[in-house]
């Protein structure tokens, strides 16, 4: 599990959400973002866009599967790279 603060000013809209989905689909693990007691599937664009995750929100990335550690790190990197 990794914690990350979302910097993106406009939250997880189409552009960042689709990049997360793209990266997440490269891993075998199931990958979720946990926020305010809810889990959002990193492999589903509608799930991520419905999360209402906004600028400044702290989220937890959790993955389960063979490549879970790599997957979590990669998703964390993607999220921290979004600033606009």
């Amino acid at each position, binding site marked *: 599990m990794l914690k990350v603060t979302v910097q993106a000013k*406009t*939250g997880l*809209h*189409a*552009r960042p959400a*689709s*990049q997360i*989905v*793209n990266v997440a689909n490269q891993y075998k693990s199931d990958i979720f973002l946990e926020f305010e007691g809810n889990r959002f599937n990193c492999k*589903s*664009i*509608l799930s991520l*866009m*419905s999360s*209402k995750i*906004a600028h400044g929100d702290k989220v937890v990335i959790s993955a389960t599967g063979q490549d879970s550690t790599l997957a979590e790190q990669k998703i964390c990197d993607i999220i921290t790279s979004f600033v606009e």
Partner: protein
Amino acid sequence: MLFSKKTKELYAPLDGDLVPMIDIPDSVFSSKMMGDGFAIKPANGMVYAPADCEVVMVFETSHAIGLKTKDNIEILIHFGIDTVKLNSVGFDVKVEEGMKVKKGDLLLVVDIDQIRDKVPSLITPIIITSGEKFILEEKFKIKNGEKVLSFI
């Protein structure tokens, strides 16, 4: 009802010109990163449900609506390019998450004259994010409610 109806077709959510995905002026959509679909260059700002479905997502800035049919086909309607930056100004969304809508129900009214100069494009991608394959109608101009694609 003891059987569920399979969604065989989608109907245009907007009046306008049909634009193939690869011609959308934004690589996030034209690369089909989010999935395949089509786009419409809107003639006006009235957006209607393309099929009977449930509203599963209304983005906070009102420019994107996610829908799901009874047979789990997911459709994302994303009005315009970079419209997230408008922060809902010019967007009057008529539905809420969890609502069930019928084909042709009004989802969103956009003041396109107000937003036209503020965004790179009004071209509206409509994406089948659940990945079902389809055949697009060979049309240039389309009216809302007209058949736009058939699932195969």
